[in-house]
Protein backbone atom coordinates (compact mmCIF):
# COMPACT_ATOMS: atom_id res chain seq x y z
CA UNK A 1 0.00 0.00 0.00
CA UNK A 2 1.30 3.43 -0.86
CA UNK A 3 0.09 6.61 0.85
CA UNK A 4 -2.52 7.36 -1.82
CA UNK A 5 -4.02 3.91 -1.32
CA UNK A 6 -4.00 4.33 2.46
CA UNK A 7 -5.72 7.71 2.22
CA UNK A 8 -8.30 6.22 -0.19
CA UNK A 9 -9.11 3.53 2.41
CA UNK A 10 -9.21 6.13 5.19
CA UNK A 11 -11.56 8.25 3.09
CA UNK A 12 -13.85 5.29 2.37
CA UNK A 13 -14.15 4.36 6.06
CA UNK A 14 -14.77 7.99 7.04
CA UNK A 15 -17.41 8.59 4.38
CA UNK A 16 -19.23 5.30 5.11
CA UNK A 17 -20.19 6.02 8.71
CA UNK A 18 -17.81 8.66 10.16
CA UNK A 19 -15.64 5.93 11.69
CA UNK A 20 -12.06 6.55 12.73
CA UNK A 21 -9.58 4.62 10.56
CA UNK A 22 -6.15 3.53 11.77
CA UNK A 23 -3.29 1.27 10.76
CA UNK A 24 -2.28 -1.99 12.40
CA UNK A 25 1.11 -3.57 11.84
CA UNK A 26 0.74 -7.32 11.35
CA UNK A 27 4.41 -7.83 12.17
CA UNK A 28 4.73 -6.14 15.58
CA UNK A 29 1.04 -5.48 16.38
CA UNK A 30 1.56 -1.74 16.95
CA UNK A 31 -1.22 0.63 15.91
CA UNK A 32 -1.00 4.16 14.59
CA UNK A 33 -3.30 6.79 13.13
CA UNK A 34 -1.02 9.21 11.28
CA UNK A 35 -0.36 7.24 8.10
CA UNK A 36 2.96 5.95 6.80
CA UNK A 37 3.27 3.26 4.15
CA UNK A 38 5.29 1.15 6.61
CA UNK A 39 5.23 0.59 10.34
CA UNK A 40 7.13 3.43 12.10
CA UNK A 41 7.99 1.03 14.97
CA UNK A 42 9.43 -2.01 13.13
CA UNK A 43 9.62 -0.89 9.50
CA UNK A 44 7.44 -3.69 8.17
CA UNK A 45 5.30 -3.17 5.06
CA UNK A 46 2.85 -5.75 6.36
CA UNK A 47 0.30 -3.18 7.49
CA UNK A 48 -3.46 -3.05 7.32
CA UNK A 49 -6.02 -0.24 7.43
CA UNK A 50 -8.56 -0.92 10.19
CA UNK A 51 -11.77 0.64 11.51
CA UNK A 52 -11.58 1.81 15.12
CA UNK A 53 -14.46 1.45 17.55
CA UNK A 54 -13.89 5.17 18.19
CA UNK A 55 -14.09 4.46 21.91
CA UNK A 56 -11.36 6.03 23.98
CA UNK A 57 -10.43 8.19 26.95
CA UNK A 58 -9.50 11.85 27.12
CA UNK A 59 -5.70 12.06 27.38
CA UNK A 60 -5.55 15.83 27.66
CA UNK A 61 -7.65 18.85 26.66
CA UNK A 62 -7.69 22.62 26.56
CA UNK A 63 -10.48 25.14 26.16
CA UNK A 64 -9.40 27.92 23.85
CA UNK A 65 -10.80 31.45 24.19
CA UNK A 66 -10.33 33.67 21.17
CA UNK A 67 -12.10 36.87 20.11
CA UNK A 68 -15.31 36.05 22.00
CA UNK A 69 -15.34 32.50 20.65
CA UNK A 70 -14.41 29.36 22.58
CA UNK A 71 -13.76 25.76 21.63
CA UNK A 72 -12.15 22.61 23.05
CA UNK A 73 -9.15 20.79 21.62
CA UNK A 74 -7.17 17.82 22.85
CA UNK A 75 -5.94 14.27 22.53
CA UNK A 76 -7.89 11.02 22.89
CA UNK A 77 -6.32 7.62 23.60
CA UNK A 78 -8.27 4.97 21.69
CA UNK A 79 -8.91 1.49 23.05
CA UNK A 80 -6.91 0.08 20.11
CA UNK A 81 -3.81 1.72 21.60
CA UNK A 82 -3.14 4.84 19.54
CA UNK A 83 -3.81 8.53 20.18
CA UNK A 84 -5.37 11.23 17.99
CA UNK A 85 -5.81 14.99 18.14
CA UNK A 86 -9.44 16.07 18.07
CA UNK A 87 -11.92 18.76 18.95
CA UNK A 88 -14.47 18.06 21.67
CA UNK A 89 -18.17 18.91 21.42
CA UNK A 90 -18.61 19.59 25.14
CA UNK A 91 -16.75 20.10 28.41
CA UNK A 92 -14.73 17.02 29.36
CA UNK A 93 -11.95 16.13 31.74
CA UNK A 94 -8.95 13.82 31.55
CA UNK A 95 -10.03 10.16 31.78
CA UNK A 96 -13.59 10.74 30.52
CA UNK A 97 -14.86 8.07 28.14
CA UNK A 98 -15.56 9.50 24.68
CA UNK A 99 -16.43 8.40 21.16
CA UNK A 100 -14.43 9.79 18.25
CA UNK A 101 -15.98 10.48 14.86
CA UNK A 102 -14.41 11.76 11.66
CA UNK A 103 -16.16 13.85 9.03
CA UNK A 104 -14.79 15.33 5.80
CA UNK A 105 -14.24 19.05 6.20
CA UNK A 106 -13.82 19.76 2.51
CA UNK A 107 -12.16 17.97 -0.41
CA UNK A 108 -8.85 17.64 1.38
CA UNK A 109 -9.15 17.80 5.17
CA UNK A 110 -11.15 16.04 7.89
CA UNK A 111 -12.59 17.12 11.22
CA UNK A 112 -12.01 14.74 14.11
CA UNK A 113 -14.62 15.19 16.80
CA UNK A 114 -15.10 13.51 20.18
CA UNK A 115 -18.16 13.47 22.44
CA UNK A 116 -18.84 12.00 25.86
CA UNK A 117 -20.51 8.59 26.05
Amino acid sequence: MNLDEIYAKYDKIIREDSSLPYIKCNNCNSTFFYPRHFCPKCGSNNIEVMRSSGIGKVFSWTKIYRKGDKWIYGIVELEEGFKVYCNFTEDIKIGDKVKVKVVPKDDRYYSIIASKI
Partner: protein
Amino acid sequence: MIVGFASNLYKKYEGSTFEILADTLFSALDVAGLNKDEIDGLFLTALPGTFDSYAALHFPTTQIAQYLGIKPKFTTVFDYGGASALSMIYHAYKTIKAGEGDTIACIVGGKASDIRGKGVTVDAIDKAYPDVSLTPFDRLFRGLNDLNPVSDYALVANRHMYLFGSTDEQRALIAVRQRFNAQNNEKAIYRDPLTVEQVLKSSIVAEPLRLLEIVYPIDGFHVFIVSKRASKSSLRPIEVLAYGEAHWTVMPAELDDIVYTPAVQSAKGIFDLNKVDSFELYDSFTITVMLQVEDIGLIEKGKGGEFFEKHDTTYLGDIPINTGGGSLNTGQPAYMSGGVILEEALLQLNNMAKGHQVKDADTVFLNGIGGWNRAHSVSLVLGEAK
Protein backbone atom coordinates in the same frame (compact mmCIF):
# COMPACT_ATOMS: atom_id res chain seq x y z
CA MET B 1 35.32 32.63 21.22
CA ILE B 2 32.03 34.59 21.50
CA VAL B 3 33.56 37.99 20.71
CA GLY B 4 30.50 40.06 19.96
CA PHE B 5 26.75 40.15 20.32
CA ALA B 6 23.90 42.60 19.86
CA SER B 7 20.14 42.78 19.64
CA ASN B 8 17.46 45.14 18.39
CA LEU B 9 13.93 44.46 19.56
CA TYR B 10 10.74 46.29 18.59
CA LYS B 11 7.08 45.70 19.32
CA LYS B 12 6.46 46.58 15.70
CA TYR B 13 9.15 47.67 13.27
CA GLU B 14 7.72 49.59 10.34
CA GLY B 15 10.60 49.00 7.92
CA SER B 16 12.14 45.96 6.27
CA THR B 17 13.33 42.88 8.13
CA PHE B 18 16.67 43.22 6.31
CA GLU B 19 17.24 46.63 7.94
CA ILE B 20 16.98 45.28 11.50
CA LEU B 21 19.15 42.31 10.59
CA ALA B 22 21.92 44.43 9.08
CA ASP B 23 21.88 47.02 11.88
CA THR B 24 22.10 44.28 14.51
CA LEU B 25 24.90 42.48 12.68
CA PHE B 26 26.95 45.67 12.39
CA SER B 27 26.46 46.39 16.12
CA ALA B 28 27.66 42.89 17.00
CA LEU B 29 30.68 43.30 14.71
CA ASP B 30 31.47 46.62 16.44
CA VAL B 31 31.62 44.85 19.81
CA ALA B 32 33.84 42.20 18.25
CA GLY B 33 36.11 44.79 16.61
CA LEU B 34 35.69 43.01 13.28
CA ASN B 35 34.32 44.11 9.91
CA LYS B 36 31.83 42.37 7.66
CA ASP B 37 34.45 41.23 5.15
CA GLU B 38 35.99 39.07 7.85
CA ILE B 39 32.86 36.89 8.11
CA ASP B 40 33.69 33.38 6.88
CA GLY B 41 30.44 31.71 7.84
CA LEU B 42 26.81 32.73 8.06
CA PHE B 43 24.54 30.71 10.36
CA LEU B 44 20.85 31.50 10.22
CA THR B 45 17.55 30.36 11.57
CA ALA B 46 14.30 31.70 10.19
CA LEU B 47 10.64 30.79 10.42
CA PRO B 48 7.96 31.13 7.75
CA GLY B 49 6.18 34.46 7.53
CA THR B 50 8.78 36.40 9.51
CA PHE B 51 10.68 38.06 6.63
CA ASP B 52 8.80 41.05 5.24
CA SER B 53 5.51 39.10 5.36
CA TYR B 54 6.52 36.59 2.70
CA ALA B 55 5.63 32.98 3.50
CA ALA B 56 9.25 32.03 2.85
CA LEU B 57 12.54 33.32 1.45
CA HIS B 58 13.97 31.35 -1.44
CA PHE B 59 17.60 30.64 -0.44
CA PRO B 60 17.54 32.79 2.70
CA THR B 61 21.28 32.85 3.51
CA THR B 62 22.03 33.91 -0.08
CA GLN B 63 19.55 36.76 0.16
CA ILE B 64 21.03 37.93 3.45
CA ALA B 65 24.61 37.76 2.14
CA GLN B 66 23.44 39.66 -0.95
CA TYR B 67 21.90 42.40 1.14
CA LEU B 68 24.93 42.68 3.43
CA GLY B 69 27.39 42.57 0.54
CA ILE B 70 29.48 39.75 1.99
CA LYS B 71 31.01 36.64 0.46
CA PRO B 72 30.92 33.94 3.11
CA LYS B 73 32.86 30.70 2.59
CA PHE B 74 29.94 28.68 3.92
CA THR B 75 26.37 29.19 5.09
CA THR B 76 24.00 26.98 7.07
CA VAL B 77 20.36 27.16 8.06
CA PHE B 78 19.54 25.78 11.51
CA ASP B 79 16.14 24.24 11.73
CA TYR B 80 15.34 23.86 15.43
CA GLY B 81 13.18 26.97 15.79
CA GLY B 82 13.71 28.61 19.17
CA ALA B 83 16.47 26.16 20.08
CA SER B 84 18.54 27.01 16.97
CA ALA B 85 20.38 29.96 18.52
CA LEU B 86 22.08 27.72 21.07
CA SER B 87 22.94 25.08 18.50
CA MET B 88 24.56 27.67 16.23
CA ILE B 89 26.99 28.71 18.94
CA TYR B 90 28.17 25.14 19.47
CA HIS B 91 28.53 24.41 15.77
CA ALA B 92 30.29 27.73 15.12
CA TYR B 93 32.66 26.91 17.97
CA LYS B 94 33.36 23.44 16.55
CA THR B 95 33.77 24.72 13.00
CA ILE B 96 36.35 27.28 14.11
CA LYS B 97 38.17 24.72 16.29
CA ALA B 98 38.35 22.49 13.22
CA GLY B 99 40.05 25.30 11.31
CA GLU B 100 37.35 25.70 8.69
CA GLY B 101 36.95 29.40 9.28
CA ASP B 102 37.91 32.19 11.68
CA THR B 103 34.70 34.12 12.13
CA ILE B 104 31.06 33.04 12.02
CA ALA B 105 28.01 35.29 12.35
CA CYS B 106 25.01 33.60 13.99
CA ILE B 107 21.72 35.30 13.15
CA VAL B 108 18.36 34.69 14.76
CA GLY B 109 15.19 36.73 14.45
CA GLY B 110 12.75 38.30 12.02
CA LYS B 111 9.43 40.08 12.25
CA ALA B 112 6.50 38.61 14.14
CA SER B 113 4.20 41.60 13.68
CA ASP B 114 2.99 40.59 10.22
CA ILE B 115 1.77 37.16 11.39
CA ARG B 116 0.56 38.66 14.66
CA GLY B 117 -1.49 41.11 12.60
CA LYS B 118 -3.17 38.18 10.85
CA GLY B 119 -4.34 36.92 14.25
CA VAL B 120 -2.40 33.65 14.17
CA THR B 121 0.80 32.26 15.66
CA VAL B 122 3.68 30.81 13.73
CA ASP B 123 2.89 27.20 14.67
CA ALA B 124 -0.55 27.76 13.18
CA ILE B 125 1.03 29.45 10.13
CA ASP B 126 -1.20 27.41 7.82
CA LYS B 127 -4.11 29.60 8.88
CA ALA B 128 -2.35 32.65 7.36
CA TYR B 129 -0.52 30.88 4.53
CA PRO B 130 -2.62 27.90 3.36
CA ASP B 131 0.21 26.53 1.20
CA VAL B 132 2.62 26.04 4.09
CA SER B 133 2.72 22.42 5.23
CA LEU B 134 2.94 21.75 8.98
CA THR B 135 3.30 17.98 9.18
CA PRO B 136 3.41 14.99 6.81
CA PHE B 137 -0.12 14.33 8.06
CA ASP B 138 -1.74 17.68 7.23
CA ARG B 139 -4.84 16.02 5.76
CA LEU B 140 -5.67 14.54 9.17
CA PHE B 141 -4.39 17.43 11.23
CA ARG B 142 -5.34 20.68 9.58
CA GLY B 143 -9.07 20.09 9.77
CA LEU B 144 -8.75 20.57 13.52
CA ASN B 145 -9.30 23.79 15.37
CA ASP B 146 -6.22 24.45 17.50
CA LEU B 147 -4.19 27.47 18.56
CA ASN B 148 -0.68 26.07 18.39
CA PRO B 149 1.72 26.41 20.07
CA VAL B 150 -0.43 27.83 22.88
CA SER B 151 -2.92 24.96 22.74
CA ASP B 152 -0.10 22.39 22.56
CA TYR B 153 1.51 23.68 25.75
CA ALA B 154 -1.94 24.03 27.35
CA LEU B 155 -2.47 20.29 26.80
CA VAL B 156 0.86 19.66 28.49
CA ALA B 157 0.04 21.96 31.42
CA ASN B 158 -3.35 20.32 31.96
CA ARG B 159 -1.87 16.84 31.91
CA HIS B 160 0.96 17.92 34.23
CA MET B 161 -1.67 19.15 36.70
CA TYR B 162 -3.58 15.87 36.34
CA LEU B 163 -0.56 13.58 36.77
CA PHE B 164 1.47 15.50 39.33
CA GLY B 165 -0.90 17.97 40.97
CA SER B 166 0.96 21.09 39.83
CA THR B 167 -1.12 24.24 40.22
CA ASP B 168 -2.01 27.48 38.46
CA GLU B 169 -0.39 29.33 41.38
CA GLN B 170 2.91 27.50 40.88
CA ARG B 171 3.02 28.41 37.20
CA ALA B 172 2.05 31.99 38.04
CA LEU B 173 4.97 32.15 40.45
CA ILE B 174 7.33 31.55 37.53
CA ALA B 175 5.91 34.61 35.75
CA VAL B 176 6.17 36.66 38.94
CA ARG B 177 9.83 35.73 39.53
CA GLN B 178 10.77 36.47 35.96
CA ARG B 179 9.05 39.85 36.15
CA PHE B 180 11.07 40.66 39.27
CA ASN B 181 14.21 39.91 37.27
CA ALA B 182 12.98 42.08 34.40
CA GLN B 183 12.40 45.19 36.52
CA ASN B 184 15.84 46.65 35.83
CA ASN B 185 16.44 45.05 32.44
CA GLU B 186 16.49 47.83 29.87
CA LYS B 187 15.62 45.30 27.12
CA ALA B 188 12.37 44.32 28.84
CA ILE B 189 9.09 45.77 27.62
CA TYR B 190 7.23 44.54 30.74
CA ARG B 191 8.87 45.85 33.91
CA ASP B 192 6.10 46.68 36.41
CA PRO B 193 6.02 44.46 39.50
CA LEU B 194 3.65 41.52 39.17
CA THR B 195 1.78 39.36 41.70
CA VAL B 196 0.47 35.79 41.52
CA GLU B 197 -3.06 37.22 41.85
CA GLN B 198 -2.52 39.45 38.82
CA VAL B 199 -1.33 36.51 36.74
CA LEU B 200 -4.34 34.42 37.81
CA LYS B 201 -6.70 37.30 37.01
CA SER B 202 -5.34 37.76 33.48
CA SER B 203 -7.61 36.31 30.82
CA ILE B 204 -7.46 32.62 29.94
CA VAL B 205 -6.15 32.07 26.42
CA ALA B 206 -6.07 28.27 26.36
CA GLU B 207 -7.05 26.66 29.65
CA PRO B 208 -5.14 26.54 31.96
CA LEU B 209 -2.70 29.05 30.39
CA ARG B 210 -3.39 32.72 31.01
CA LEU B 211 -2.27 35.77 29.07
CA LEU B 212 0.55 36.64 31.50
CA GLU B 213 2.01 33.13 31.14
CA ILE B 214 2.42 33.45 27.40
CA VAL B 215 5.21 35.14 25.47
CA TYR B 216 4.37 38.14 23.28
CA PRO B 217 5.72 37.89 19.71
CA ILE B 218 7.77 40.91 18.57
CA ASP B 219 10.09 42.04 15.77
CA GLY B 220 13.86 41.94 16.10
CA PHE B 221 17.16 40.16 15.78
CA HIS B 222 19.98 38.82 17.87
CA VAL B 223 23.39 38.41 16.27
CA PHE B 224 26.29 36.57 17.90
CA ILE B 225 29.82 36.65 16.52
CA VAL B 226 31.93 33.58 17.19
CA SER B 227 35.57 34.07 16.22
CA LYS B 228 39.12 33.15 17.05
CA ARG B 229 40.07 36.78 16.35
CA ALA B 230 39.43 38.00 19.87
CA SER B 231 42.14 40.64 20.26
CA LYS B 232 39.86 43.61 19.61
CA SER B 233 36.96 42.34 21.70
CA SER B 234 36.57 43.44 25.30
CA LEU B 235 34.42 40.41 26.15
CA ARG B 236 35.60 37.57 28.34
CA PRO B 237 36.89 34.56 26.40
CA ILE B 238 33.70 32.53 26.71
CA GLU B 239 33.82 28.91 25.61
CA VAL B 240 31.37 26.03 25.26
CA LEU B 241 31.82 23.88 28.38
CA ALA B 242 29.15 21.30 27.59
CA TYR B 243 26.56 20.60 24.93
CA GLY B 244 23.74 18.25 24.08
CA GLU B 245 20.87 18.16 21.63
CA ALA B 246 17.91 15.84 21.22
CA HIS B 247 15.07 15.64 18.73
CA TRP B 248 11.74 13.99 19.32
CA THR B 249 10.24 14.54 15.94
CA VAL B 250 7.03 12.54 16.35
CA MET B 251 3.74 14.35 16.77
CA PRO B 252 3.12 14.75 20.51
CA ALA B 253 -0.03 12.62 20.15
CA GLU B 254 2.32 9.75 19.24
CA LEU B 255 4.53 10.19 22.32
CA ASP B 256 3.98 7.84 25.26
CA ASP B 257 3.34 10.99 27.28
CA ILE B 258 3.41 14.71 26.54
CA VAL B 259 4.77 15.95 29.86
CA TYR B 260 8.40 15.23 28.96
CA THR B 261 10.53 17.35 26.65
CA PRO B 262 13.62 16.17 24.74
CA ALA B 263 15.63 18.08 27.37
CA VAL B 264 15.47 14.83 29.36
CA GLN B 265 17.90 13.53 26.75
CA SER B 266 19.84 16.65 25.65
CA ALA B 267 20.77 17.69 29.19
CA LYS B 268 21.39 14.28 30.67
CA GLY B 269 24.71 14.14 32.46
CA ILE B 270 26.37 16.85 30.38
CA PHE B 271 27.36 19.01 33.37
CA ASP B 272 27.33 19.16 37.17
CA LEU B 273 24.39 21.46 37.88
CA ASN B 274 25.86 22.40 41.29
CA LYS B 275 28.61 24.25 39.44
CA VAL B 276 26.16 26.47 37.55
CA ASP B 277 25.71 30.12 38.60
CA SER B 278 22.60 30.87 36.56
CA PHE B 279 20.13 29.02 34.37
CA GLU B 280 18.63 30.54 31.25
CA LEU B 281 15.72 28.30 30.26
CA TYR B 282 13.44 28.62 27.28
CA ASP B 283 10.36 30.52 28.37
CA SER B 284 7.75 30.53 25.63
CA PHE B 285 5.27 29.79 28.43
CA THR B 286 5.46 29.37 32.21
CA ILE B 287 4.89 25.63 31.78
CA THR B 288 7.92 25.44 29.45
CA VAL B 289 10.16 26.61 32.30
CA MET B 290 8.50 24.22 34.77
CA LEU B 291 9.09 21.28 32.42
CA GLN B 292 12.75 22.18 31.97
CA VAL B 293 13.66 22.45 35.65
CA GLU B 294 12.42 18.86 35.82
CA ASP B 295 13.88 17.61 32.57
CA ILE B 296 17.38 19.08 32.93
CA GLY B 297 17.50 17.50 36.39
CA LEU B 298 17.17 20.38 38.87
CA ILE B 299 14.36 18.38 40.49
CA GLU B 300 12.58 15.09 39.91
CA LYS B 301 9.78 14.80 37.36
CA GLY B 302 6.49 16.25 38.51
CA LYS B 303 7.96 18.47 41.25
CA GLY B 304 8.65 21.50 39.05
CA GLY B 305 5.94 23.53 40.76
CA GLU B 306 7.26 22.80 44.25
CA PHE B 307 10.76 23.68 43.03
CA PHE B 308 9.71 27.30 42.50
CA GLU B 309 8.07 27.42 45.94
CA LYS B 310 11.19 26.01 47.60
CA HIS B 311 13.86 28.04 45.80
CA ASP B 312 14.38 31.73 45.20
CA THR B 313 14.90 31.83 41.43
CA THR B 314 15.42 35.58 41.17
CA TYR B 315 18.84 36.88 40.13
CA LEU B 316 19.50 37.39 43.87
CA GLY B 317 18.34 33.92 44.85
CA ASP B 318 19.87 30.50 45.53
CA ILE B 319 19.10 29.14 42.05
CA PRO B 320 18.81 32.08 39.63
CA ILE B 321 16.64 31.32 36.59
CA ASN B 322 15.94 33.60 33.64
CA THR B 323 17.87 36.38 35.31
CA GLY B 324 16.83 39.16 32.92
CA GLY B 325 13.17 38.20 33.03
CA GLY B 326 13.36 36.10 29.90
CA SER B 327 11.37 36.48 26.73
CA LEU B 328 8.14 36.55 28.76
CA ASN B 329 9.23 40.13 29.51
CA THR B 330 11.35 41.20 26.51
CA GLY B 331 8.91 39.72 24.02
CA GLN B 332 9.78 36.89 21.66
CA PRO B 333 11.50 38.02 18.44
CA ALA B 334 10.04 36.18 15.44
CA TYR B 335 8.56 33.43 17.64
CA MET B 336 11.95 32.26 18.93
CA SER B 337 13.28 32.88 22.43
CA GLY B 338 16.75 31.37 21.94
CA GLY B 339 18.44 34.69 21.18
CA VAL B 340 16.95 36.29 24.30
CA ILE B 341 18.27 33.64 26.71
CA LEU B 342 21.64 33.49 24.95
CA GLU B 343 22.14 37.25 25.14
CA GLU B 344 21.22 37.19 28.83
CA ALA B 345 23.79 34.43 29.46
CA LEU B 346 26.49 36.53 27.79
CA LEU B 347 25.50 39.64 29.75
CA GLN B 348 25.80 37.62 32.96
CA LEU B 349 29.15 36.11 32.04
CA ASN B 350 30.58 39.50 31.10
CA ASN B 351 29.28 41.23 34.22
CA MET B 352 27.17 43.47 31.98
CA ALA B 353 23.72 42.62 33.37
CA LYS B 354 23.03 46.02 34.88
CA GLY B 355 20.40 45.78 37.62
CA HIS B 356 20.02 42.01 37.31
CA GLN B 357 23.59 40.74 37.61
CA VAL B 358 24.17 37.45 39.41
CA LYS B 359 27.22 37.93 41.63
CA ASP B 360 30.35 36.26 40.20
CA ALA B 361 28.52 34.54 37.35
CA ASP B 362 31.14 32.29 35.77
CA THR B 363 29.06 29.41 34.45
CA VAL B 364 25.64 29.54 32.78
CA PHE B 365 23.45 26.60 31.79
CA LEU B 366 21.12 27.29 28.89
CA ASN B 367 18.33 25.14 27.55
CA GLY B 368 16.37 25.82 24.38
CA ILE B 369 13.15 24.14 23.30
CA GLY B 370 11.89 24.64 19.77
CA GLY B 371 10.29 23.41 16.63
CA TRP B 372 6.71 22.65 15.83
CA ASN B 373 5.17 21.34 19.05
CA ARG B 374 8.52 21.33 20.91
CA ALA B 375 10.37 18.66 18.95
CA HIS B 376 13.87 19.95 19.69
CA SER B 377 15.94 20.55 22.79
CA VAL B 378 19.43 22.05 22.92
CA SER B 379 21.42 22.21 26.17
CA LEU B 380 24.48 24.44 26.32
CA VAL B 381 26.85 25.38 29.12
CA LEU B 382 28.92 28.53 28.66
CA GLY B 383 31.83 29.79 30.73
CA GLU B 384 35.48 30.64 30.72
CA ALA B 385 37.62 27.56 30.10
CA LYS B 386 39.81 27.04 33.13
